[in-house]
């Protein structure tokens, strides 16, 4: 889009795209999934999507875990099984964006081969900036676009994450955490964070030595008497073990997004993003307050309160 393009042109572009999207044209879907990154388009796309409480026709599942845990491979293996069950699936595969150059190498598709004429699967790779807990920007609106397009399942693969990257839990119905064998002792599984948020813990690479022990440790530690149970299972993509069991568990999974809490969090997150964008545009105001702080001898807290006050004053 050119810098001089007017709001009217933008509406025209989007109008024809939206019509094609509603006709089920995958190219229009692909284009919209790109355009959501531009604020002006995003606003209009939210408008087209219409409600803050969309009809939830899809089951949204996230697969998360450390780098190399086997997330892409597992998703690649689940795709044909889900198709056998008659489900259509869209995948949003996140890989990291460089903090230095903004570039990215998106390589998740390598492990998700799809028959060329398979119209029931759609895969999109997303570059994910650092500091976002392993999920690409504007993921919620992308999920909504895929859902409204008619996919039965929307599967999100996060960037390889650590113990505390829990934000994905706010966006999906069901969260699968992959843990490779030999990646910790009992004390690791006591720790707060991702393990608490996960709906299902899956030990990957189940054909490797140590997988059974890791699974047994997790099973024991996460299922202490008197605490809510947390299912643990083992898969091996290489040997096709545990995959259909995983699919049937996912099929029966509850829909977390139906909870009021989900909408509340989503709105709050979006509002935070909007405020952060607005604040980032006010660099001169920050410099001014800093200068005043110097002159008036304010402490850091006072200066920050003053900045917050002024930012919210002229924030519209």
């Amino acid at each position, binding site marked *: *889009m*050119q*810098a001089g393009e007017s709001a009217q042109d933008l509406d025209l572009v989007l109008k024809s795209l939206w019509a094609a999207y509603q006709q089920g044209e*995958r*190219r229009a879907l*692909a*284009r919209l*999934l*790109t355009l959501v*990154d*531009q*604020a*002006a388009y995003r606003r209009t796309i939210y408008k087209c999507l219409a409600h803050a409480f969309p009809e939830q026709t899809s089951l949204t599942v996230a697969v998360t875990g450390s780098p190399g845990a086997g997330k892409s491979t597992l998703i690649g293996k689940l795709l044909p099984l889900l198709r056998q069950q008659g489900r259509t699936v869209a995948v949003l595969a996140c890989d990291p*964006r*460089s903090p230095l*150059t*903004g*570039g*990215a*190498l*998106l*390589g998740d*598709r*390598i492990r998700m*081969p*799809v028959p*060329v*004429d398979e119209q029931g699967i*759609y*895969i*999109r*790779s997303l*570059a994910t900036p650092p500091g976002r807990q392993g999920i690409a920007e504007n993921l919620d609106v992308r999920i909504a676009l895929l859902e409204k397009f008619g996919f039965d399942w929307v599967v999100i693969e996060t960037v390889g994450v650590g113990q505390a990257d829990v934000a994905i839990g706010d966006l999906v119905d069901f969260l699968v955490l992959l843990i490779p064998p030999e990646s910790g002792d009992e004390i690791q599984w006591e720790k707060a964070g991702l393990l608490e948020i996960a709906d299902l813990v899956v030990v990957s690479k189940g054909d490797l030595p140590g997988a059974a022990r890791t699974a047994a440790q997790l099973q024991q530690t996460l299922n202490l008497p008197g605490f809510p149970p947390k299912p643990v299972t083992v898969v091996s993509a290489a040997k096709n073990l545990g995959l259909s069991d995983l699919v049937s568990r996912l099929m029966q999974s509850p829909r977390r997004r139906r909870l009021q809490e989900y909408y509340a969090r989503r709105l709050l997150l979006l509002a935070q993003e909007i405020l952060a964008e607005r604040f980032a545009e006010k660099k001169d105001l920050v410099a001014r307050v800093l200068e005043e702080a110097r002159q008036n001898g304010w402490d850091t807290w006072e200066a920050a309160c003053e900045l917050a006050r002024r930012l919210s004053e002229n924030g519209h």
Partner: protein
Amino acid sequence: MAARTRRIVLAKVGLDGHDRGIKVVARALRDAGFEVIYPGLWLSPEAVVRVVAEEDADWLGISLLSGAHLILVPKVVELLRQQGLHHVRVVVGGTIPEEDVAALLACGVAKVFGPGSSLSDIVRYFQDVDSHASR
């Protein structure tokens, strides 16, 4: 409005398992700030075009070291046209003999990087065309 990061699909087409070169180019373009999508080895022309469409890519770079470029590349370009992906610029790299370059350009390829091409030339080409491009 800030320009968005340009997306490049880099692909190996046909029975050609040599991906050292394409990985090096992928790294250089990544470091130049592009989003590079690499879908792996042994793709059919149809599969490559599917990836370009799904990823809403601006560029397709095809690497061939198999000698099949005069058969496979025109097929990919034709499929892109059939799918309405006219805006996608196609670049070819690999062991392309000098005498085949004209035929590739004639079928709609934007640029050919044969043996001896330097990484900085490749990156500069993408950057130069990109700075004039709009969509």
